[in-house]
Structure formats: structure tokens, C-alpha cells
């Protein structure tokens, strides 16, 4: 069986900064894989290597049987089968929602106008923003924009969807709409690779969870194990900080364990009076 995504010994550096340091993993068709990990651990870079928005320094990336790291690979053709959803939505601001979803169908897939419009409307409907077809991105809420962005990717009939923290830029009350769309996609059998900080989503929806730190995969497995019963101390520290942020230790290094607890917590106390001052 060919994997939907196969990554072998992937390295990526920006100049002297080594961001990915030997990543191996696979995603099978229909699987939902969530990538979690602290900020700066290289999650976005990994995802961007999967569709070659970043060129890996070394290693192999194979998507649907095509090796993207082969210099002779037609990247543009391969990208058509891989949808990507960004943290900042990246909708085209000079086009309406409908045009956003149509443009690549017209220019890349060379679909006819009527077909493209029908498919665009279907997908906008599917993500729950069918009534916003004629709105420009600036007229939409973040949650609506992100759903249009998902529709835009889906209209290309991708066999794999990449999500890079799709809800991180959203107001909390808008997160649910986007997650619901993603959950539905997963149920319909879409192969998904999702970078996220939404642990509840990862736990519910993912078939497989990858924990990254410092450019390597520290731990991976089914969500019940990686999130529910992490084995590695770095995973545990990370999850503790994410799941219970109010109890995170100040400047907590991964292996610090409750050293600074208790009396030594001046920051919140000191912030209070200055907040008063502004309020007065």
C-alpha cells in the first residue's frame, strides 16, 4: 500500500539554524494525523515541507506516490492534490469568497466557468458559508474567512489536506465552527495532517498524534497514549502547560519540576496595580 505521505530523514535548516533534524513518519490514506509541540519546534516548517513551500535541506518527501524532493518533479502538478489551510487564512482580499474558491479551478484545473461556480458554491455550502459567496474577505469574521479558505482548498478535489494551526488566529467563540468543519471532513474520510494546539480536537479526531520538540519527533502514537498517557517527560511538561496554562511555571524549562512554585510568583501580583492605574 502506498502512503498518502511518506517522510524519510527530513532535515531543514535556515542558514545556521537547524529547524528539522531528521524526521521520519507516514500518513496513510484516510488517516488524520495531528502534530503537536511547543512554539518554534518546527511544526509549520514540517508541514510546509510536505507541499514544498519550504525546500528541505535533505531527506525525502513522497506524497501520493510522487517524490516531491526529486528535482524533476512537477511541483505545481503535485500541489494540486494537496490542499493547505493557513493560520492567517490568506484569502485573496481583492476577490469575493466565491471568486476565491473559483480562481484556481479556472486557472489551474481549467474548469469551465459554470462548473467552477457550481463546485465553488457546493463547497461554500459544505463549510456553512454558502450565504457569504458575494462577500469580500474583509467583510467576513475570522471563522468565516477560515471556512472559505477550507472551501477554496477543497474545490481542487485534494486527496490530502494540510492544516497549520487553523484556529490559532480566531476568537475563542469562532473556533468551534472551524473545528466542526474539520471534524466533518475527517468523518468523510479525508486524509489530514493537522498542526494544532486544540488538544481536545486531536484527542477526538486524530488517528495518530505526533509530538515534536526541537526539530525531532519525541513521541508518537494513538491519541489516547500520546495525549492521555504520555511516556516522555518533554511530552508531559508540554501537555501540562497547554492543558493547564494558568499553572505553568515562570520561564519553565522543560525539565524544571515545581522548583519555582509557591511564594516566588511576583509577576501577576505586580501587574495588578498598574492595571488599576490605567483603569482610573
Amino acid at each position, binding site marked *: 500500500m502506498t502512503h498518502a505521505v511518506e517522510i524519510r530523514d527530513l532535515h531543514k535548516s535556515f542558514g545556521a539554524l537547524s529547524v528539522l533534524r531528521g524526521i521520519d513518519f507516514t500518513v496513510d490514506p484516510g488517516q488524520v494525523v495531528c502534530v503537536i509541540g511547543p512554539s518554534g519546534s518546527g511544526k509549520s516548517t514540517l508541514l510546509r515541507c510536505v*507541499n514544498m513551500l519550504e525546500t528541505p535541506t535533505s531527506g525525502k518527501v513522497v506524497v501520493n506516490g510522487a517524490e516531491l524532493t526529486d528535482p524533476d518533479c512537477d511541483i*505545481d502538478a503535485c500541489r494540486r492534490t494537496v490542499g*493547505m489551510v493557513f493560520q492567517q487564512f490568506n484569502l*485573496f482580499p*481583492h476577490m469575493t469568497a466565491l471568486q476565491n474558491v473559483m480562481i484556481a479551478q479556472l486557472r*489551474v484545473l481549467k474548469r469551465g466557468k459554470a462548473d467552477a461556480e457550481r463546485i465553488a458554491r457546493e463547497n461554500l455550502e459544505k463549510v456553512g458559508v454558502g450565504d457569504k459567496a458575494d462577500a469580500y474577505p474583509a467583510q467576513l469574521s475570522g471563522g468565516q474567512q477560515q471556512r472559505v479558505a477550507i472551501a477554496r482548498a477543497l474545490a481542487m478535489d485534494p486527496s490530502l489536506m494540510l492544516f497549520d494551526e487553523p484556529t490559532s488566529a480566531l476568537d475563542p467563540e469562532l473556533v468551534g465552527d472551524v473545528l466542526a468543519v474539520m471534524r466533518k471532513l475527517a468523518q468523510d474520510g479525508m486524509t489530514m495532517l493537522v498542526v494544532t494546539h486544540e488538544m481536545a480536537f486531536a484527542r477526538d479526531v486524530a488517528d495518530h498524534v505526533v509530538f515534536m520538540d526541537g526539530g525531532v519527533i519525541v513521541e508518537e502514537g494513538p491519541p489516547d497514549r500520546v495525549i492521555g498517557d504520555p511516556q516522555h517527560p518533554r511530552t508531559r511538561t508540554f501537555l501540562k502547560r497547554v492543558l493547564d496554562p494558568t499553572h505553568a511555571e515562570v520561564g519553565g524549562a522543560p525539565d524544571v519540576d515545581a522548583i519555582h512554585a509557591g511564594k516566588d510568583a511576583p509577576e501577576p501580583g505586580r501587574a495588578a*496595580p498598574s492595571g488599576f492605574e490605567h483603569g482610573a
Partner: protein
Amino acid sequence: MSTTTVEPSGPAGTPPERTGLSPRKRRRISLGIQYAIGLVVLVALVIVIDWGQVGEHFFDPDEIVKLFPNIFLIAMKNTVIYTVSAYVVGFALGLVVALMRLSSVKIYRWIALVYVEIFRGLPALLVLMIIGFGLPMALGVQMPFDIYGKVAIGLGLAASAYMAETFRAGIEAVPKGQVEAARSLGMSQSRAMVTIVVPQALRIVIPPLTNELVLLFKDSSLVSALGITAATVELTKFGSDMGITAGDTTPMIVAGMSYLVITVPLGIAVRKLEARQRKGR
């Protein structure tokens, strides 16, 4: 930081010491002085200037009548033709040079850079003279459409360097995520440029490019240096020739106002556009 160090006299802060006048009184006095100066200057002007002279030489109705209809049918028309044709040439060249400047081919970047440095550094008049006289003399090259061709290319070249830099800034102002989104949908680099980046960049550069149109409008007066006929005359030459012949300033004033009739609305449009863009962000 404690509340007592806060400058303005808040409820808890100590009030600032009163040294003579309060800030409000000081501001009022300062305003009063400014109005007084303005008034004095105005009165002086009214007394000193011989208004009869002014009316006769600046707004002489007889002279105004003589200007029509040629000032519109010939001079204004030619000024507009020179300006618009040079603008079109400058726009097209500028866009091409800007894209070359951002090309991944090093030699293109180099050519574009040298081009911009040359035409930004040379006076427009000199470029116009080289195209109008220099090239025909040296190489026997003749521009199409006679003087209109010379002006379109000469002034267009001079304007294109500025426009190229403006386009480049506009293209670079389009967020990188836009290209990434386009590429992730399978668009090639050039397709993404044409469909996604350039349309957004054009919106960004509309105000500065409209300013460039105003500048070109004024620069079209340089055309008179090429030696023009009664049929190809533009506003400045028309107004000044008529004025000198009649020994009166009125034609020049009217020519000047003819420029303003176009440049002032353009300036207002630019400011409106800029305000709207600021709001849009």
C-alpha cells in the same frame, strides 16, 4: 512604578505647580498672536498692491477672450496627449522593469537596477532632448508619429524609472502568504504573480501613480524645448507666447489655471484614495 510619579494631575497625583499662566491661557495667547500677524500681512497687501494694475495685467478680459478657443482645442488637448501617452509608456515600461527587478534571474535584476539608476538620475529634459534630437542625429533613428512619438518615449522613459520603483514597492507590500496560498493551490510562480500579486499591488500603488500623473502633467511643458509648431503647442508655451506677444500676464495666468483645473481634482482624488486605503487596513 507607583502612581505618584504619573505626570498629569490625576486624583492621586500632586497638581503641577502654577507658574504664571495656565497652559490653556498660553495656548489662547499664542493663537491670538498668529491671527494678528495674518491680519497685518493682509492689510499691508491690500494697501501696497495696486489693484487696478493687477486686474488689468492678470485678469484682462480682452486678453482672456483672445485665448479661446485655441487654449482648449490645441494647447490643452496637446498637453493631455503628451501627458497620457508618456504615462502609458512609463506605466508599461515601469511594470516590466519592476518585474525584472524582482526576477529570480540575476542578469534581469541587474539590467533593471541599472535602468532605474540611469533614468532616475537624468533630468527629464535631457532624456527628452536625447530622444528628440540626439538619437536622430547620431543614428538616424526616427521616432514614429513625429513629435508625439518623441514625447511619449522621452518623457515615458524618464517617468518609467519612478514607476518601476513604485511598482516594486507595491509588489513587495503584498504579504508573502498570498503567494504561498496561490502556490499551494497549484499556481505557478508567474501565474500567482499575474493573478494574485499584481492586481493587489496595483491597488496599493494607485495613489503614488496618480501623483506621478500630476508630475508628468507639469513635465509636459518640457516639450516646448523640442521646438513645436502652432499645431503641436502645449499649455505653457501657448500661454507664455501669447503673454509675451501681448505684453500682458493674463494668458500665463489662464494657462496656469488650466493646469490646476486638472491637477487639483487629481490631488483631491489621491487624498481620498489614500484615506480609504488607510481605513481598509
